[in-house]
């Protein structure tokens, strides 16, 4: 298939909209890591910066949706072009949610830094966040390069994030049973772990959009469920 449309303005519209996605992705990657680092280093100022930076992410989502609506209205995209525009709308929504989770992480950091640290859980959360951030980076690379294989790899790697969450879940449970004074901190830390796990789900959803964009079909849910905390013990 030829890469270029005869109408070059159409190509420029599509490129511009994807460039906005990449810009948004960069901001979200940064938010994840900054939030996790501020949690580990108990840096309230840094956490505050993450919270205020979320506005830019939200604005970008709005802009992307407006542009996508404009392209649909003016260009009536079909086939691969239609899939691209649809994927752009979904990916921007996923990114926006990840941004919200990072913001929530930063909010809890402000509370947690007033309390005694619970073991090395902050370090473990940072490693988990790092893994999600790497997955997001790969998912976005796969998006730009239309690389379904890399996207599938990202989908598979979400299992690891789920396993990390499982381990932390049990750890927090143990801490709380050992000493009820840990409950407040552990509840916050557990929500953070759960939020990072949810970020991984949204990254997976982005990777699925890449597969859809390249192949035209959404991959089935063949992935084994690794988050078993919701199942009866």
């Amino acid at each position, binding site marked *: 298939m030829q890469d270029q449309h*005869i109408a*070059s*303005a159409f190509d420029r519209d599509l490129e*511009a*909209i994807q460039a906005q996605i990449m*810009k948004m992705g960069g901001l979200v990657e940064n938010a994840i890591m900054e939030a996790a680092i501020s949690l580990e280093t108990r840096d309230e100022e840094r956490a505050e910066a993450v919270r205020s930076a979320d506005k830019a992410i939200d604005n970008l989502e709005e802009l992307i949706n407006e542009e996508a609506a404009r392209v649909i209205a*003016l*260009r009536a995209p079909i086939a691969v072009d239609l899939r691209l525009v649809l994927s752009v709308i979904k990916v921007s929504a996923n990114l926006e949610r990840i941004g919200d989770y990072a913001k929530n992480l930063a909010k809890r950091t402000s509370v947690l830094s007033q309390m005694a640290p619970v073991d090395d859980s902050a370090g473990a959360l940072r490693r988990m966040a790092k893994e999600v951030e790497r997955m997001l980076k790969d998912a976005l690379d796969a998006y730009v390069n239309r690389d379904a294989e890399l996207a599938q790899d990202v989908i598979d790697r979400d299992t690891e994030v789920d396993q990390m969450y499982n381990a932390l879940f049990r750890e927090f449970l143990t801490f709380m049973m050992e000493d009820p004074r840990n409950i407040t901190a552990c509840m916050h830390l557990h929500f953070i772990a759960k939020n990072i796990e949810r970020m991984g789900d949204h990254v997976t959803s982005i990777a699925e959009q890449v597969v859809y964009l390249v192949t035209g079909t959404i991959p089935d849910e063949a992935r084994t469920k690794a988050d078993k905390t919701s199942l009866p013990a």
Partner: protein
Amino acid sequence: MNDMRILERDVDTKEVKIAARDVQVYYGTNHAIKDVSVDIEDKTVTAFIGPSGCGKSTFLRCINRMNDTIDVCRVTGDIRIDNQDIYDPRVDPVQLRAKVGMVFQKPNPFPKSIYDNVAYGPRIHGLARNKADLDDIVEKSLRRGAIWDEVKDRLNAPGTGLSGGQQQRLCIARAVATEPEVLLMDEPCSALDPIATAQIEELIDELRQSYSVVIVTHSMQQAARVSQKTAFFHLGNLVEYGETGTIFTNPVDPRTESYITGRIG
């Protein structure tokens, strides 16, 4: 890259090229255009849309006084190009039409060679001093019409021997040969296949770097694709005029919305 795109939308100057005020057109007793006032910008593609018989072609034809050729047609009101009244008795319609080029629905090349089709206008308006000059104008115009590569080896072949899409691009080349400032297009793609249509649309997008282009089209998608400004006509009235993106995503007038969404015709 997004910034680039937004910038591109912004380059459209806000300079008014054609200003129409209270224009009325009558065909005998039929009131075809009612009180139309509109400012058409320079270096912008403006699309006129609306159902058949709504007056969009009639209004287009007022801009280069093509309606003068119809005996029963009467035009009142004020139409100015670069602030000059084009219905002033001192204005020579032939000179006006050199400045305001037109491309019609059906490709209508002269029964002459490809070269002579393009050279005709510059010759009668004395735009070329010698043969080399004229050759230059012909080549430049054919290039602008995005047809040079296809015809450069057969410039002496008859223009009527080209395919429909090529003939229409030849007509566009012919229209731009006199260096017009305004280009009027009356459904230029309605007789063409999708590829030729896309080529003409791409060409229109390029032409707007230098001209004010006004296009009448029955295809709403075409209006959406090529124009920056859209005017919706209905029953001789100009119902709504605005930025194309706005008209097609969030029109103000309920009649516009009904028409573009296929609820009234």
